[in-house]
């Protein structure tokens, strides 16, 4: 009988890498609304600073030491990836802890993950961006990219709704875009559910803007993101205007703990929102969106 070294049976694993956590340093914090702040950050490692890229609508998993990790959209210009922004509303354990951060503090960043807004689809036609509340954060990167490549579209329309003037994100930017209109051709339409004396724009939910915009649905690609109820009415409005379903794109939200389709939390029917989404073409998910508690 041969002597066999059973230890030699062990195969060296050619293991999966896992997704690395990069470390970023908070540079600047901007208050957007009473409970929402934008955190500008740069990667600590020069290699990360030089190589990190993201596309509009993608998310990062942001990690706070000792607190936890959460999915947050990248809300800055994809063509300036060395300095990225995340806009975060404090609503719970991890997001509340973000409020304690100061410039110089470090956070972990895994990402980017997910399927981006497909600006390419809108080329040659019109692009209409419809955002409700915090839903503007994942669309801001798309707006930046659209402005950079303005020549690729005919009309560029940005429709934003918020509860009240104090809940409107990126107010200065929106005012600026609004003033650009004449020479850059960015049409902004802003509305709040309840206006105050100083509010110079519209009043009413975001769908009340639809008739004003006078879109040509056949030639328009729409990107829609906002709270569930806003999405519901906005999508209904678009259907009523006879938008082709395959020209409407939506971003979905689900619980996410891994962002690499292994934790199981972000399932939406057969889809993993972290990898198949968060951006979906409306006709891919319209049936699923109709199912209660899916």
């Amino acid at each position, binding site marked *: 009988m041969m002597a066999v070294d059973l230890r030699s049976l062990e195969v060296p694993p050619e293991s999966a890498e896992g997704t690395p956590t990069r470390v970023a340093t908070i540079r600047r914090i901007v208050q957007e609304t009473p409970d929402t702040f934008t955190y500008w950050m740069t990667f600590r490692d020069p290699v990360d600073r030089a190589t990190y890229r993201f596309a509009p609508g993608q998310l990062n998993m942001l990690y706070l030491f000792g607190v936890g990790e959460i999915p947050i959209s990248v809300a800055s210009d994809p063509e300036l990836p060395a300095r990225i922004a995340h806009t975060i509303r404090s609503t719970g354990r991890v997001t509340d802890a973000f409020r304690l951060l100061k410039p110089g503090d*470090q956070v972990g960043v895994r990402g980017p993950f997910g399927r981006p807004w497909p600006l390419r689809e809108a080329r040659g036609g019109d692009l209409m961006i419809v955002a409700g509340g915090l839903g503007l954060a994942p669309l801001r990167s798309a707006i930046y990219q659209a402005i950079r490549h303005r020549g690729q579209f005919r009309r560029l329309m940005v429709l934003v709704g918020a509860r009240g003037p104090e809940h409107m994100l990126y107010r200065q930017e929106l005012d600026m875009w609004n003033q650009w209109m004449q020479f850059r051709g960015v049409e902004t339409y802003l509305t709040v559910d309840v206006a105050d004396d100083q509010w110079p724009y519209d009043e009413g939910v975001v769908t009340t803007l639809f008739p004003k915009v006078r879109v040509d649905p056949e030639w328009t690609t729409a990107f829609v993101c906002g709270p569930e109820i806003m999405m519901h009415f906005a999508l209904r409005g678009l259907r009523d205007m006879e938008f082709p379903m395959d020209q409407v794109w939506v971003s979905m939200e689900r619980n996410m703990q891994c962002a690499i389709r292994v934790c199981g939390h972000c399932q939406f029917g057969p889809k993993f929102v972290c990898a198949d989404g968060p951006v979906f073409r409306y006709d891919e998910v319209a049936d699923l969106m109709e199912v209660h508690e899916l």
Partner: protein
Amino acid sequence: MRYLDREAFGKLVDALAGAGYDLIGPTVRDGAIVLDHIDGAEDLPSGVGEEQGPGTYRLTSRDDDMVFSWAHGPDAGKRFLFPAREVLCTAKRNDGQLTVECRPGDERPFAFVGLRSCDLHAIAVQDRVFLDADPHYARRRERALFIGVNCAVPGGTCFCTSMGTGPKCTIGFDLALTELPGGFVVEVSSPRGEQMIEVVRSREATEEEVRAAQAVTTEAEGQMGRSLDVADMPELLYRNREHPRWKDVAARCLACGNCTSACPTCFCHDIVEGMSITGDTATRTREWASCFSEEFSHIVGMEIRKSRESRYRQWLTHKFASWIDQFGTSGCVGCGRCITWCPVGIDVTEEITAIRATDGEVEVAEEVMAS
């Protein structure tokens, strides 16, 4: 086919332990045949049988000394390759500098003895989830040895023939045993298996032994406790998301999550943050999660699957339908553990059969019925 007598088999198992493998095998504990760390062949069950049914499991004694004449206890390979709690990453903060390390540990490699065909298929199912994504799983999985067993006595809740996953081992093993009264007919399926069997005295199996082994499988195939028609999956469950049966089963389901723990393929998990008492080290721990819990679907301001009905539908539809879209395989291997270990004996085969029988039926809202 090789043949190992009982003594040689015992020596092989002991040799694996002696070579430093973490030996995982069936052993009797707390009134069940559990899979656990064992020291050697003497820890394996002998002359023990089991009876399983919806919500019931009990050991029986056999009037022989067969080692593997039973189907399976509550746990499969999952508990070892994808442990219920595992620290994935350690973060440190020193002088404001954050570091996060997620390196897999350097545990002893596993040698599994006595996994069933359904268990081996379940590992292949989890491979599709974790192997490329998770270095911790991949490292354990790739280093492990697998000695499978072809079932002789399926359990009362087994339906592997319906799922195409048993009772004979077809994938994922280095050696597969068929137990005969005096020893084992052994199928060797990998170079590692060839090396393993070299360690002890074996001989070519006789034609008669090979035929006897085949008969064990044929007989087992005829003794399945359950069966299930899986035609038209995933569509059957996709088009029945509003079927009244979901409400019916939700009225019986306790949402305890036993089925997701017992299931050898369920992979959903949470990542939980922990902090050392000194405050300079934090751990990111993966813990099994169950889609039956309300918080599983938590997003700000709401739980998406608030009703038990929606959670049962999520589990069953994921397992038998959406899994196919996601991973190119059913998530069910037909082991029936979810039936056995359900405290109220809910039987997935019965639920799916009921939906199929009234395919397309839609729950009518109460207001509509009243009018």
